[in-house]
């Protein structure tokens, strides 16, 4: 009887703790929506999301250039991150001698532990002048941003892809080899397709990381509010728009930044649910 009561008490305490963390999340969401929605209603969602001019001092709040900027930077990061990350995951799983793997895995984890401001600073001092001197333009560009971001999402792609490759039943590989396929054919035709859902989930999580990255992008992208037309143009993403302008914003301008946050909120939610859906399919 006493044990039962104790059990109940523990259960309720855990429930409270769980709810307090979720309620903080809910409070943040309520706050963001409460601050941002009035402006979206005032302008109309279409004018806000599809508007091409962002000049808060004149009351123009169109975030299409930022959405496009986020899209280009993320696409560029994926173009670099997916081949590198996937190749690295396959190599770690199939060819790396155990001794080398003990060094390589922590090194990749370390990539994830480097603060983004360090990536940004390195990009600003090393990468940006290279792009400016050899390719032209201001150097602070989508290309530089994509390169840095590509490296930043590598750990996510590598570790999750590798996990999903390792989780495959050993019979897949044995079967492939037994049928006379070479090692590489087995990897490319059997193992990678079998681990596909995990790999796709890793890519989507990497994409979420890329869209959410702020500090490094503020330093490298140049933050111009013009619609970018080439990879050497400066651009502004949704997150950097909030990051760079929040210091001085007030009134409608401040609300517009929260509204930018709402758009970002939806994009990230869609990506995360997609990742969860795809990784569930792997186990199910």
């Amino acid at each position, binding site marked *: 009887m006493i044990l039962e009561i104790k059990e109940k008490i523990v259960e309720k305490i855990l429930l*409270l703790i769980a709810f*307090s963390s979720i309620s903080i999340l809910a409070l943040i969401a309520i706050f963001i929506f409460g601050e941002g929605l009035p402006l979206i209603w005032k302008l109309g969602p279409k004018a806000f999301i599809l508007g091409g*001019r962002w000049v808060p001092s004149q009351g123009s709040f169109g975030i299409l250039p930022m959405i496009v900027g986020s899209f280009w930077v993320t696409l560029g990061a994926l173009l670099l991150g997916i081949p590198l990350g996937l190749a690295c995951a396959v190599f770690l799983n199939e060819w790396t001698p155990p001794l080398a793997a003990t060094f390589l895995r922590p090194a990749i984890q370390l990539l994830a532990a480097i603060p983004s401001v360090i990536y940004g600073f390195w990009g600003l001092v090393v990468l940006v002048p290279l792009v400016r001197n050899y390719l032209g333009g*201001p150097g602070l560009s989508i290309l530089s941003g994509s390169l840095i971001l590509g490296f930043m999402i590598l750990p996510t792609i590598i570790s999750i892809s590798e996990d999903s490759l390792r989780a495959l039943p050993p019979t897949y590989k044995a079967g492939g080899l037994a049928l006379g396929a070479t090692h590489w054919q087995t990897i490319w035709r059997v193992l990678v397709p079998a681990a596909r859902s995990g790999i796709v989930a890793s890519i989507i999580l990497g994409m979420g990381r890329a869209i959410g990255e702020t500090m490094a992008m503020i330093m490298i992208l140049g933050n111009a509010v013009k619609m970018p037309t080439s990879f050497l143009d*400066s651009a502004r993403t949704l997150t950097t728009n909030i990051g760079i*302008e929040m210091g*001085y914003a007030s009134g409608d*301008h401040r609300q517009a930044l929260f509204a930018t946050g709402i758009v970002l909120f939806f994009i990230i939610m869609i990506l995360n649910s997609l990742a969860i859906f795809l990784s569930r399919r792997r186990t199910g």
Partner: protein
Amino acid sequence: MTMSKKSKLLCLLWLLSLLSTTTFEMGCQRGQAGVTVAGSTSVEPFAGLLAEEYMLHHPKSHIYVQGGGSTAGIEAVRSHAAHIGMSSRSLMAEEKNLYAVTIAKDAIAIIVHPENPITDLSLPQIRQVFAGKIRNWNDIGGHLRPIVLVTREEGSGTREAFQKMVMEKEEINLEALVQDSNGAIRQVVGSDPNAIGYISLGLVNETVKALKISGVEPNLKNIFYGHYRLVRPFLFVFNGKPEGEANSFLEFVLSPEAQELLQKEGLVTIRP
């Protein structure tokens, strides 16, 4: 697991208690000894310097200097989160109920890369460059290279001052690179031979070159006599009359000793 009404109520109580502790703590901080100075990132380094100097003379006092931006500083004073707000722009109409004191004036310097052959531009030329109507250095007597504009973000006091004093009705080209501090602009302009930007004169160093404007060099003498026009006020903003420690800090800042210090740092003092 279904949630009974009781546990729902418990959750609510838990949440309320969380909220009340945070507000209580915030209330405590306000009562803490010391003066909080918050606001413009342009004024911040100078206020920090003055605070250090003041604390040397008054070892028991604590002056906390924080950035955040002019508007945030004024907002903080209004909500009593800070005792003194720093602003690098004049108060707007809806802020006039606050009490503002000019502690010094700051000039805005137009800066380019040191290797840029241009040394002198007129105000209309600068305006056309930043409006995107002049797009090549060659058009104003420089190399045949595209001009890279660097500006501050919307809402910044420096940008507002630049807009008012240089651009007037023109709009700064949307293609301009945007950086969120004087230091970041200096970094970009100092590393790109094609760039032009604007920062506080006090923060100009050897990595960039400040341009003359129609032959007038941005130096203290020209600013003081009004020849160099790109000048804006640095304000301390109070909610009501300054009192106690905050007032004694203000008095120190306006003293000849502190003003001399500001002048050494490149600001223009309020008195000769």
